[in-house]
């Protein structure tokens, strides 16, 4: 297959700066978003994801100004999410330069929103972002595949089965699933590979694996499990890993990647 698997650095943005926390908390400053975006493009990033991590909690729209500055300066696709509530919010981010917009909490509250946005903008620019957590008591009803959807920036459990929600969201109009393991987010313990495998097998749209990348082998494991793209934030920000090193590792093991 000639389609390259994508390596996607994620910029978690708050107040115009890039931040990073562990398990969605303890945010710390990690740099200027435009500077980082340009560096990543030069290093071979296949796409960028910008998440406004404070948006939902503070009830404000994602920072369109940051998106405008970034998309003006780079020539690769950009996905933006965080606190998007309605069709107008999606339109505003697309107008600011986003190629795709991710819905998370609001899509759970109002699944028809995905359909309304897809009808207007096309499924190819609608992403459902799913924050999933392993159930601590997997036998407790309602029965599911073992992961539940958590909304509100990782703070509000929903009892919704993560795999089932991914299927419904794709049917409703999401053209991609951005799948984050809250248990692994920021831990560098590796992606939640069974979660990725379960979702990738259940949907026919691309799946982006997120949460827990530490070593190049983690990226390979997620891709081997069926992820179409792998996302990481702090490993790239802190230069513990380069995008090139991840691609080289995966390419040597038979994964199709793109060289800039």
């Amino acid at each position, binding site marked *: 297959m000639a389609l390259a698997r994508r390596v996607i650095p994620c910029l978690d943005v708050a107040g115009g700066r890039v931040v990073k926390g562990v398990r969605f908390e303890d945010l710390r400053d990690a740099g200027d978003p435009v500077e980082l975006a340009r560096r990543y493009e030069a290093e071979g990033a296949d796409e960028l994801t910008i998440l406004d991590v404070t948006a939902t909690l503070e009830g404000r729209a994602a920072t369109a100004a940051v998106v405008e500055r970034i998309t003006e300066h780079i020539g*690769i696709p950009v996905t933006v999410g965080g606190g998007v509530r309605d069709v107008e919010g999606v339109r505003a981010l697309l107008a600011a330069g986003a190629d795709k917009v991710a819905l998370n909490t609001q899509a759970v509250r109002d699944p028809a929103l995905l359909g309304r946005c897809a009808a207007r903008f096309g499924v190819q620019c609608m992403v459902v972002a799913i924050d999933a957590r392993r159930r601590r008591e997997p036998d407790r009803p309602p029965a599911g595949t073992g992961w539940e959807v958590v909304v509100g920036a990782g703070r509000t459990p929903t009892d919704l089965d993560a795999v089932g929600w991914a299927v419904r969201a794709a049917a409703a109009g999401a053209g991609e699933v951005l799948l984050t393991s809250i248990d692994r987010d920021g831990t560098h313990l590796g992606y939640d590979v069974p979660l990725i495998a379960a979702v990738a097998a259940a949907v026919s749209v691309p799946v982006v694996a997120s949460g827990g990348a530490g070593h190049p082998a983690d990226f390979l494991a997620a891709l081997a499990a069926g992820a179409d793209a792998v996302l990481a934030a702090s490993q790239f920000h802190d230069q513990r890993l380069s995008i090139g090193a991840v691609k080289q590792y995966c390419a040597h093991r038979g994964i199709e990647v793109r060289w800039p």
Partner: protein
Amino acid sequence: MPTAPPVVAVLDGGTGNLRSVTAAIRRAGGRAVVTADHRVAREAAALVLPGVGAFDPGIAALRSTGLDRVVRAFAEEGRPVLGVCLGLQLLHEGSDEGTSPGLGLLPGRARRLRAAGSVKVPHMGWNQVAWTTSHPFLADLGSPTRFYFVHSYAVPMGPAAVASTDHGAVFAAACARGSVFATQFHPERSGAAGLALYRRLVEAARCS
């Protein structure tokens, strides 16, 4: 004396992201004007018909603004038109995505891509594009070159195809007829290779 940058009109269908297109035109040396006004478009040296959204609303937006007639006029006069993604599909005869007829400046219809196993739909990401016919817009680019795609519908290979890509099935990655050139991929989101294509468009605009 340096010549003024040629004006490239980006046709605004009201469905979203035109900033990446205008930024690419500027980087390629042109002056980008986003417009839904057929009089403004008529005065430009070249047109870009961008593509975000669904087929029927896309065609409806062109018809309601009279921009469909401007695109036809450019094609008849041999002035450059670049269609991108949905723009490529709108230039064809129709699409399975909708019921409206397309502009019909390129032969064939868009069909839905089929997902199967590891072939996901939408087709999203950097895929290889191989040139099947030589074209001046492709002169700077090796074959195959990777470009960024994001779409669920595609036009099968036909007489106007100049490049092919494989995603479950082989489809037309780029088509050309006269002064009309169209890509299923997004050159404005395809780094240096995409920028080379926009440079060719701006060059053609300068001569038109």
